[in-house]
């Protein structure tokens, strides 16, 4: 694909001229053991085409049968989003020609979704720092199946454009998906990018709490499509929308909304018109590019799936499932904040960083809440940022963080050494204890060695030593630094300070 230079209006000017309307479609891959319509396993990362059968390969004569657990998952998601649950609904065939579905149709739901008319109150930071909520209205949540994975061969970029041919793995084809669709979100104004991100983050948190999916954005088990249009400011007319796909991190949701707002504004304000189309988000460059035009492809010729009978959940079943819903996320946040003694600011940063559940698990594994917060929002957030991933995808578990902090609490490690243990964890060098042993990281508690290092530092810095003797205790920092350097960081700084002050008293 050729590099495109696209004019963008500044975000400020965009908002002066236009009101954004957002629509979010989030696909959640359920973590059932088997697929939606057949008994094939759903494990991530299996060898290509080893989790397939005649049904999910669309071979003639194969008959689908609905996975009860997947229907339960769909109903529970619907209930958690305050939706109505259909008394009776059907699956439908969505016909299209693209080799990611070997049947040439995707089994989905059309005008009879299992869940509809719900809402979610999204927590935002208010102008004055006070928490504020924005209600996102949910249009529907419906059941469907995931598609296969295509690999494009040839061409310069490995993308579909310019490829010579494509290779398809159908392991993912047929995995249960729940598609959650919002009504157009209007009135968010300058906060549209923030609302989009906060909605997906909170939805993801809800999905995790429900235990229906891994909700790993990096592995594609939760994926967001961003619909965006602009209306001239103050008018009530919805503009032409674009649908941006492949938005696979929370940060990208925010960036993609902002980018499309500015791009639409540039096109519209120069007298152009927006093409209704699918666009692809590019994480690396932070831009969207045109995909296939939608006009023709929209003709999916939906019709009721004749191979499946309707799903008619009894009210008893629905109520039974309602009884299994986890604590409401808003209430849960309030409870945890009280239990942990976090300030509003600390809590907001925690939620914003997607660290709430990680800290909850770390605390459950025995770490003090503030220490857990410090690791996840400091060290882990920094590392995630450097590698462009989410903190829960780093590869460090809450239990490991708790184990490292336990070593700090026991005086075996200081924070600096603990960071090296995290290096080791990320490099797959074993458990924290094994890494401490293998890398020789433990704090030296040998008083003789420490005392000698302090003597060296005093001898090497006579001016500093004199200042301390004269009562300028603050000067001790320079000597502590010298000692820590000689000890290669493996000393308890507080003990070093004590020794220095004793010797120079």
């Amino acid at each position: 694909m050729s590099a495109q230079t696209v004019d963008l209006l500044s975000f400020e000017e965009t908002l002066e001229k236009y009101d954004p309307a957002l629509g979010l479609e989030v696909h959640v891959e359920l973590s059932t053991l088997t697929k939606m319509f057949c008994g094939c396993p759903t494990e991530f990362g299996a060898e290509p085409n080893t989790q397939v059968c005649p049904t999910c390969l669309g071979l003639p004569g194969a008959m689908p049968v609905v996975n009860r657990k997947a229907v339960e998952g769909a109903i529970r998601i619907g209930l958690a989003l305050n939706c109505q649950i259909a008394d009776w609904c059907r699956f439908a065939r969505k016909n299209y020609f693209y080799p990611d579905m070997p049947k040439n149709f995707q089994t989905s739901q059309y005008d009879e979704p299992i869940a509809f008319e719900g809402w979610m109150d999204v927590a935002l930071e208010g102008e004055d720092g006070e928490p504020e909520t924005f209600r996102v209205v949910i249009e529907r949540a419906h059941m469907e199946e995931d598609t296969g994975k295509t690999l494009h061969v040839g061409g310069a970029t490995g993308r579909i454009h310019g490829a010579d041919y494509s290779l398809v793995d159908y392991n993912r084809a047929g995995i249960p998906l729940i598609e959650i669709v919002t009504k157009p979100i209007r009135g968010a104004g300058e906060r549209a990018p923030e609302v989009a991100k906060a909605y997906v983050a909170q939805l993801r948190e809800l999905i995790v709490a429900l235990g229906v999916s891994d909700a790993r954005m990096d592995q594609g088990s939760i994926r967001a499509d961003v619909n965006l249009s602009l209306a001239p400011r103050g008018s009530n007319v919805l503009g032409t929308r674009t649908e941006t796909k492949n938005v696979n991190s929370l940060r990208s949701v925010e960036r993609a909304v902002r980018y499309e707002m500015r791009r639409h504004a540039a096109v519209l304000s120069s007298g152009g018109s927006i093409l209704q189309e699918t666009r692809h988000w590019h994480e690396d460059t932070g831009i969207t590019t045109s995909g296939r035009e939608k006009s023709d492809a929209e003709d999916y010729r939906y019709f009721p799936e004749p191979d499946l009978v309707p799903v008619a959940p009894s009210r008893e079943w629905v109520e039974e499932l309602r009884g299994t819903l986890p604590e409401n996320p808003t209430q849960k946040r309030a409870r945890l904040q009280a239990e942990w003694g976090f300030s509003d600011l600390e809590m907001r940063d925690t939620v914003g960083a997607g660290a709430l559940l990680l800290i909850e698990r770390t605390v459950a594994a025995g770490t003090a809440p503030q220490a857990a917060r410090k690791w996840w929002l400091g060290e882990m957030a920094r590392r995630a940022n450097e590698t462009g991933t989410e903190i829960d995808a780093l590869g460090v578990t809450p239990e490991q963080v708790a184990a490292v902090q336990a070593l700090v609490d026991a005086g075996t490690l200081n924070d600096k050494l603990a960071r090296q243990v995290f290096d080791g964890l990320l490099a797959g060098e074993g458990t924290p204890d094994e890494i401490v042993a293998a890398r020789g990281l433990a704090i030296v508690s040998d008083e003789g060695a420490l005392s000698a290092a302090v003597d060296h530092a005093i001898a090497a810095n006579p001016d500093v030593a004199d200042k301390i003797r004269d009562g300028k205790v603050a000067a001790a920092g320079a000597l502590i630094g010298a000692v820590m350097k000689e000890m290669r960081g493996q000393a308890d700084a507080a003990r070093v300070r004590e020794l220095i002050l004793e010797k120079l008293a």
Partner: protein
Amino acid sequence: MPEITRDEVAHLATLARIDLSDAELDHLAPQLSVILDSVASISEVASADVPPTSHPLPLTNVFREDVVVPGLTAEQALAGAPESEQQRFSVPRILGDEQ
């Protein structure tokens, strides 16, 4: 009675990735109209007390439990594929040059 136009048949052919010549369109469009007419005659028989249905049996909630059932090996799955590579189905270029 529903009638299908030549343009509609051409559109359907495009959606179905079937390349039809002008002569074939001229030939097929009237034939499809006849078929639609025949199917539509069912609605003459169906009275108000016969609800529309998408399934011949009055069943609901036919489910399977979430239990893994052995499927095909990759070799079996790919046995019928005209071409395969890297244990995957090989398919022709998806987007044409006009894209």
